[in-house]
């Protein structure tokens, strides 16, 4: 059974398609990365799964039920639009939101303490929300999205505004939740997080699903056509006929080979040039490369 399934979902505002005929299935217990440039339709898709927006056409099911006020109850949601009641104590907000989702207050209180400690907010739990920094508020909001242990967690840009330490904590929590059987959907621009975290991806551009599936399978389908090379000296060998494009760095370059070209030929040319090679790696394309190739822009 799928956690989420979208069938030919379309949503437009004033005649502009925000989401255009999107079909997508999210496997239970997986972490799905929803990728796409700004304005691609990620947030609209998420809002439709949350039953905040209603699709113009198509159907959406969550745990095999058509979306409704009831299906929302099983979802932990971190909206793109961040906000908490500014004049409430931090722990009181978390407990209030958890109680609204059906958790008994004493248990919510106990869990809130644990999570606040884990995110190093223990000393702030009696403070008012508006005394917290933006990043701290975001952590509080993340806690309130997952506290009631929902089987499905939807996080819209969970990493924005967080420092690297907290990004790592959030990532750990997601993996933990997956370990406990939860399904996680996150939208982000941060490719390196998606590569490390996600089991599958869905790439949306201009409202259309242009690529989706298992992350490893997608990368393998692109083959090992990327070469990372570090060297000292002249770089004339980079214009070898097997190379289709080059991204030059200070001490090296990333070169993309033409389809069917052998990495061996390029390495030979490099060694024969007067440059001193210090590193030569043949890689799968990065998600970033796939993203740029598919959408035509970063």
């Amino acid at each position: 059974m799928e956690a989420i399934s979208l069938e030919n979902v379309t949503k437009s505002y004033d005649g502009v398609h925000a989401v255009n005929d999107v079909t997508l299935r999210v496997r239970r217990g997986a972490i799905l990365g929803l990728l796409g440039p700004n304005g691609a339709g990620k947030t609209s898709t998420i809002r439709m799964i949350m039953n905040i927006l209603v699709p113009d056409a198509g159907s959406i099911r969550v745990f095999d039920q058509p979306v409704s006020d009831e299906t929302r109850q099983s979802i932990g949601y971190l909206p793109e639009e961040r906000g908490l009641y500014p004049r409430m104590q931090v722990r009181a907000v978390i407990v209030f939101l958890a109680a609204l989702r059906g958790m008994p207050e004493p248990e919510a209180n106990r869990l809130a303490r644990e999570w606040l400690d884990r995110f190093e907010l223990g000393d702030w739990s009696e403070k008012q929300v508006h005394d917290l920094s933006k990043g701290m508020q975001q952590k509080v909001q993340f806690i309130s999205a997952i506290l009631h242990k929902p089987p499905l967690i939807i996080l819209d840009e969970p990493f924005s505004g967080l420092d690297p330490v907290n990004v790592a904590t959030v990532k750990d929590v997601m993996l933990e939740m997956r370990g406990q059987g939860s399904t996680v959907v996150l939208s982000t621009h941060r490719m390196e997080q998606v590569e490390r975290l996600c089991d599958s991806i869905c790439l949306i551009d201009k409202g259309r699903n242009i690529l989706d599936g298992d992350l490893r399978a997608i990368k393998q389908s692109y083959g090992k056509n990327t070469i990372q090379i570090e060297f000292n000296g002249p770089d004339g060998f980079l214009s070898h006929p097997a190379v289709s494009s080059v991204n030059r760095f200070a001490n090296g370059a990333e070169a993309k080979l033409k389809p069917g070209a052998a990495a061996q030929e390029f390495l030979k040319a490099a060694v024969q040039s007067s440059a001193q090679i210090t590193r030569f790696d043949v890689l799968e394309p990065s998600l970033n490369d796939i993203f740029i190739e598919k959408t035509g822009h970063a």
Partner: protein
Amino acid sequence: MRKVWLIIKREYLTRVKTKAFVISTLIVPLAGIMLVLLIAFLISHRPQHTVRLAIVDDAGGLAPSVKHSLEHSPDSSTPQFIVTDTFDHSNTAEVERDLRSHVNSGALDAYLIVPADLTQAIELHTKNPGNFAVLAPLTAALNQALIGARLSARGIHVDDIDQIARGVDLQVIKVSQSGEAVEKGQTMGIAIGLVILLYSSLLAYGIITMRSVLEEKTTRTMEVLISSVRPFELLTGKILGVAGTAFTQFLIWIVSLGLLASYGAAMAAMFNPSSSFPAMHVPLSLLIWVACFFFGGYFLYSAMFAAVGAACSNEQDAGQLQWLAMGPLVFAISFYWLVMIDSTSTLSLVLSEIPFLAPVLMPLRLSIQAPPAWQLALSVVLLFGTIVGVIWASAKVYRVGVLMYGKRPTLPELLRWLRYS
């Protein structure tokens, strides 16, 4: 229901804990205490100034009776008078110049000149012509003396004059099913007091209800909230939570002012044993009906404010539309006289059954003549049904308008949102 309760609790607790609530709750009883203390101070330190008066009596014979009634006034609240001099038939320029200089030097407060022809005006010469506290008893004393003089000139004995000149007291007795009661205006007072209470509590708390509904939009918590609560539950919880805050404040005010008033009454009785407060005897059933209409009215109009909040995305827009919420209440007050003239007419019946007008007009009808129970019951049912209807419609508007940040809806859009399900 559990969610509604959670929302009520949050609204109530976050509001009751604010400084603004504590200050505004304390300031009314404190102002009351200050007022009582001020009155007590004024009573005990009342200036004991007596008005020194001279009378120049050209008519003759009037001065002694004016002097008598001024100096033996039974009313302790009016200024005391001393008539220092009377001059009979001696209105010479000299006397008057003399008196004027006494007034100027402060030895005398005023002098009266009674003309020989009593159809002419009597003149009061004083430095302080605006002192009404002096004018009223003086006029009364002059009238009494003058009427007395005229009547005794027609051969009526002085001792009979009081008897003859006495007016009547009109006592109004209200006839109702439960028997007869002396009407001292207390039931009408309740009806008017209720409108004032309803209007002022909505003025204070209607906008708070509206802001409370806007809160999730302005703090951007709405997406999280409406992913866990239905808008109907949210709005109901907010209306009840704010109402709880309002009623807590009113209860504190009423209890503390009640205590102050009874203390004040006891103190007034101590200073002035003759004054007494009219005893209230209002039937319990009337109070229960009136309470139904007060709470119904409060909730209906808070629901209207909630509706304005639901339709707008920020406080500026809502501020421009808030007159819509209060409008029908003002409209209702303009029908007051129609019902007052004839509370049993068909027009009165129809008007008082309209939910938006009932909280104002039904208590008025109750105070004039108790309407049949079915009319009251129907009105209450319609009122509470309308409250649910208004909240339901607001919830729909809220639900659909949720993601329309920064755009005030047009009327056609609002109507379309109501149809949307």
